[in-house]
């Protein structure tokens, strides 16, 4: 027993300084293509857009615009001949139109309890949610907890596209939650259905089933992006301007 205690103490504090200070440790985020990139020739922008298999990149004359919701991190535009610049930030949480109309009037006074539903994801998003409880991110220090009951939940965190089979369990979980309740959709599948939907077996994104308040792009969104979404919900972080690379990885509180 004592050796475990000693082992724990010797490991010392590993927890990220975020949200007090920005975290720039390499490898915490795969990044996203920058919101807009200027090319010298329209052909170059067109070629970059043609590389994208998910329709996230759109060329408009010499300008290449990114629909970050649709990006599935195939890295083809970053590594191809066209080399679209990627921003390594992680403050990706955003209020949806539905969510901005019903932001919490005042910041949460107490801890926030989260119910996680796997709508049919590939497990990578879910693993990133699990990472939030590891000592590096330790979301408990910020008052966020995963709850074993929907009755105690304030937030429904959904990952993955919603499959036909998971629609009913998802709706039942939502209905079992007391008001006020918020829905966070994390990962490009949860936003648009990703490579799976909509199709005969998946219904598309979470918004096709439930009103979504906050969305987090990414395939998968790194733990800090999900954490940012939760901080955004509780009024402890601001929404980053997606055009501004500094804001995406910095702290704007």
């Amino acid at each position, binding site marked *: 027993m004592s050796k475990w205690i000693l082992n*724990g103490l010797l490991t010392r504090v590993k927890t990220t300084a975020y949200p007090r200070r920005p975290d720039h440790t390499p490898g915490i985020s795969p990044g996203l293509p920058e919101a807009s990139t200027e090319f010298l020739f329209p052909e170059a922008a067109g070629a970059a857009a043609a590389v994208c298999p998910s329709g996230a990149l759109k060329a408009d004359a010499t300008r290449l615009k990114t629909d970050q919701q649709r990006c599935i991190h195939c890295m083809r535009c970053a590594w191809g001949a066209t080399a679209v610049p990627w921003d390594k930030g992680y403050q990706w949480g955003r209020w949806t139109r539905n969510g901005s109309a019903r932001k919490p009037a005042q910041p949460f006074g107490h801890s926030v309890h989260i119910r996680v539903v796997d709508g049919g994801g590939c497990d990578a998003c879910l693993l990133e949610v699990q990472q939030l409880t*590891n000592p590096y991110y330790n979301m408990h220090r910020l008052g966020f907890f995963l709850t074993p009951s929907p009755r105690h939940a304030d937030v429904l965190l959904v990952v993955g*596209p919603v499959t036909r089979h998971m629609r009913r369990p998802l709706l039942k979980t939502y209905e079992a939650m007391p008001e006020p309740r918020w829905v966070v959709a994390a990962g490009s599948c949860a936003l648009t259905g990703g490579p799976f939907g909509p199709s005969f077996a998946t219904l598309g994104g979470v918004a096709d089933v439930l009103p979504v308040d906050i969305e987090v792009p990414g395939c998968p969104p790194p733990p800090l992006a999900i954490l940012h979404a939760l901080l955004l919900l509780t009024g402890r972080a601001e929404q980053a301007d997606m055009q501004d690379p500094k804001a995406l990885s910095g702290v704007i509180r």
Partner: protein
Amino acid sequence: MPAPASDPPAGRTMEEDVARLWGPVVQVSHSPGRVDIFMDDPEALPSLCRWLSHERQYHLGTLVTEEEADTWRLHYLFWGGAPSWVRVLVEVPLDNSVIPSISDGVHAADWHERETEDLFGLHFSGHPQLGDFILHEEWPEGTNPMRRSFDWRGEPVGEEKEPRWQPKRVVRATGAFTMPVGPVFSGAAQASHFLLETIGEDVLRTVPRLFYKYRGVEKLAEGRTADQVVLLAERFTGTSAVAHAWAFCRAVEEIAGLEIPPRAEVLRVVFAELERFRHHLSAIAGIVHSTGMTVASSQADLLVEEALRSAGAMVGHRYLFGQIVPGGMYRDWREEQISGLSHTVESLATRLTSLTRMLRFSSSFLDRLEEVGVVTGEQAHDFGLVGPVARACGLNADLRVELPYGAYRGLLHPEVHMEQEGDGYARLRVLIDEAHESARLIQDALHRLEPGPVRVDVPHASGQAIGWCEAPRGAAFHWVRLNEGRVQRYRLTTPSFTNWHGFHLAAERFAFQDFPIIMATFGLSTAEGDR
């Protein structure tokens, strides 16, 4: 019908034996590493398959169903003997969709047949339990989404029913009740549903109900190019993306008759072993979590996060998406990037050693794992189990050794680690040993990296082939038919699909609190199994 021989005399080849025993109803052809047996009469199918499995010790790889203009074509693919592959082909007219079931003799075919019945509407005569498998109550009776006539954008019509699902048989005794678990879990866990049949503290039986995450990947792939389908292959199960992308690409490359550059072959091994290392760390962390060891959980979690970070820092993506494409690797990596990765893996492996040393001397940990969730070697063979689960009960089934592919053919030699007990602790030890072996292989692969190109162009080809890969959870088979570079049929057999079939063996007669431990030591993914 000819009776199977009990003991084939030595020295006779496969073709001769099959011709001697089933001569009138089969046509046998031979190509390097493979024998094709075309059966005119499907009635002889069960005896031939039983003979392959029991007398010749073949494993069922996959069952592929193809719908042609006026026939059903079924490929039963067996692997693991000499020659490496045996393909049994059967054709029946489209309007007569009844095929004799082989699962009486080859139990591993059970779920393949149930899946085919559900998705294609084919009937397997003699199968004890067909219907209600992949498609749940949401689907009206008679919907067969894999049929050519079914539009993938389509919506099944029919009224939605409140699920009233019940297993066929339940335990009836005083005080007995069934306890449902899932599909939404208390922490962050994948969607799956289990009915635990209990009398008080003791669970007698577990009835899993899966396929909540059925996304129809095989259907979605149809009509798309190989470059698009590889995205699906790596994203349907994000925790073994490299392995599945590799298996798919190998099938495409074989159809096109391509040799990929040696540097790409070695790089593929580096990424596949890195993924196996990360996956095994994560599985070990899962096991430690399930036993409730707080400090040890944190220590294991640190290792997982550091493995993810090093992948993110060195090669861009934490889950290694986007590396493998048909024709090689999407891009090259510099030697120092790969060696940086290898150093991190080395240091994580050293820390894993000290963590396991502490765990091995913690009786509260061992008590929870030993003799929990036992699967015997015989059961594992019958159910055709694969991966670390099979190796923990003495079954040597590692495709890297049994059917060597890529740089494992000649250049790199993985050592297979096996245990005999088949309990939770044996599975943990296999995972730990394999993680170390992966770290060694990455190091070894580094020395084999020679300069050169990493990608060749893939011509638009037509044909069919099977690609395989030892994914972190076990054997993965991707069967592909291409038509002018577009996927016409994609059959995806994953280790989780194979092993979920045998999961109930481990989850029988145990104490209630051991359920999470049995789940964690099996380490299966429903994303990988449901597809």
